[in-house]
């Protein structure tokens, strides 16, 4: 495929069909056979667990082995044992699926992209962007890193799950802070401050009172009121420089961000920090994962991956990041 910038509208179907026929289908038979093997092992494992569990529980109860905790101990041991075996087989299969099928699909999508299944955007970068800062990040994991240069714009993005701890140290609970795709791109303009575009929850919930609340200085900076009413309906902007925020958020870019949000429907946050554009796209699905109990030969599965790739790499074209008419090249 020529590149992500050419993937638009009707072209996408034919490009996907070519990728399916050239990159996925030839590799499917072996991996599908591997999947059937894993599925059978898992089913057999569960049957074996039940077959062992029932007489073991009867024996433990009948002869009062291990006191009152005996049955629970036996049950827990069998479940842990079965879970470990299941994980071992599943993760080996998943690694193969990602390294062979997803990687070749990514190459077919855009040769300039490199796919690293076990890597992600770093926690330091996530925290330093300051894009999600309602609570301090205490846990962070990620996978499915994609990186490369699309036109003049270097990008990288991965799936990310960030958590925080709530409650006291005795009764601490781990809660979700962000789950989705964290995207980093080299922005096409030079700037020095920090500007954030966040979903406008306060104004949507509380109307005028919400706007008054936003007017108070936030941890993100000073409120920036922009002229694009449609953009303002969906987003709230904070920055440490009123002029720089307007320099970055030109009328054209505001329209593109609104359009991107309306077409894809995912909650969206953008941060302009350290000459980079950070985009946090909330997504509830686990991306690029195989399935064990359903066939892998269904093109719809790969079409979903393809559309995800188009959505995330599309940020470059949709926000026009390849336009390099300013001093930064």
């Amino acid at each position, binding site marked *: 495929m020529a590149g992500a910038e050419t993937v638009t509208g009707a072209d996408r179907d034919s490009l996907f069909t070519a990728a399916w026929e050239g990159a996925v289908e030839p590799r499917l038979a072996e991996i599908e056979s591997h999947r059937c093997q894993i599925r059978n092992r898992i089913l057999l494992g569960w049957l074996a667990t039940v077959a062992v569990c029932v007489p073991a529980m009867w024996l433990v109860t009948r002869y009062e082995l291990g006191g009152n905790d005996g049955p629970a101990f036996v049950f827990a041991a069998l479940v842990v044992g079965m879970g470990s075996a299941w994980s071992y087989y599943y993760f080996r299969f998943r690694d193969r699926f990602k390294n062979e099928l997803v990687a070749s699909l990514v190459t077919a999508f855009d040769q300039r992209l490199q796919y690293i299944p076990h890597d992600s955007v770093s926690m330091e970068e996530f925290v330093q962007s300051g894009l999600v800062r309602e609570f301090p990040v205490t846990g962070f994991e990620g996978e499915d890193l994609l990186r490369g240069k699309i036109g003049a714009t270097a990008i990288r993005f991965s799936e990310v799950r960030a958590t925080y701890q709530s409650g006291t140290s005795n009764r601490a609970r781990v809660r979700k802070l962000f789950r989705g795709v964290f995207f980093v791109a080299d922005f096409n303009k*030079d700037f020095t401050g920090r500007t954030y575009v966040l979903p406008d929850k306060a104004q949507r919930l509380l109307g005028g009172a919400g706007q008054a609340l936003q007017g108070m200085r936030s941890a993100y900076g000073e409120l920036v009121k922009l*002229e694009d009413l449609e953009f303002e309906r969906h987003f709230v902007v904070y920055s440490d420089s*009123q002029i720089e925020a*307007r*320099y970055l958020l030109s009328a054209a870019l505001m329209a593109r961000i609104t359009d991107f949000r309306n077409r894809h429907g995912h909650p969206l946050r953008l941060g302009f920090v350290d000459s980079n554009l950070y985009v946090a796209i909330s997504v509830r699905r686990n991306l690029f994962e195989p399935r064990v109990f359903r066939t892998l030969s269904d093109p719809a599965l790969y079409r979903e991956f393809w559309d995800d790739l188009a959505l995330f790499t599309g940020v470059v074209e949709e926000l026009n990041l390849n336009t390099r*008419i300013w*001093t930064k090249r």
Partner: protein
Amino acid sequence: MSLTLLALLALACAVTYNMLIRRRNAAENAFAGIDVYLKMRYDLIPNLVETVRAYATHERESLQKITELRQAAAQPGLASDARVLLDNRINVAMGGLFAVVEAYPELKASENFQQLQRALNEVEERISAARRYFNTAVMEYNNAVQQFPTNLLAGALGMHSRAFLSEPPEVHVPVKVADNLQSRA
């Protein structure tokens, strides 16, 4: 009772007064922001003129005109209205210059000229951003000066509505610069 009312009235006046001053200062600060970027543009003009002169030897008249306008605009203590007027004339002159450049392919291809184009493009966008901020600040100030009851105190203090800055219709420079660079990308 009447003392309480008086105290409340005084407090309301103080709050309103502070708000009016804050908004007036914000508008003035925003105008100063435009000034900073206008000066950045004036600093680029001599380099641009020299670069064009090296290639376009027949354009002495238009280069001379831009140099004179730049010198006039860079004078200290210029009133804001006069500065805006001169800035508009510079825009027109620069638009003419970039139209002429089309006839000099070697000039268009020169690295120095392209770098100047990029710098000018950036400054133009920063001026436009500063202008947008100024207009937002003026709108907030004008709302306070015109709306009841804050207009009562604003009138007593001699505060009047300010005019918005509109994008001059003759300004084609950023478009031409962008088009030129885009066609090379």
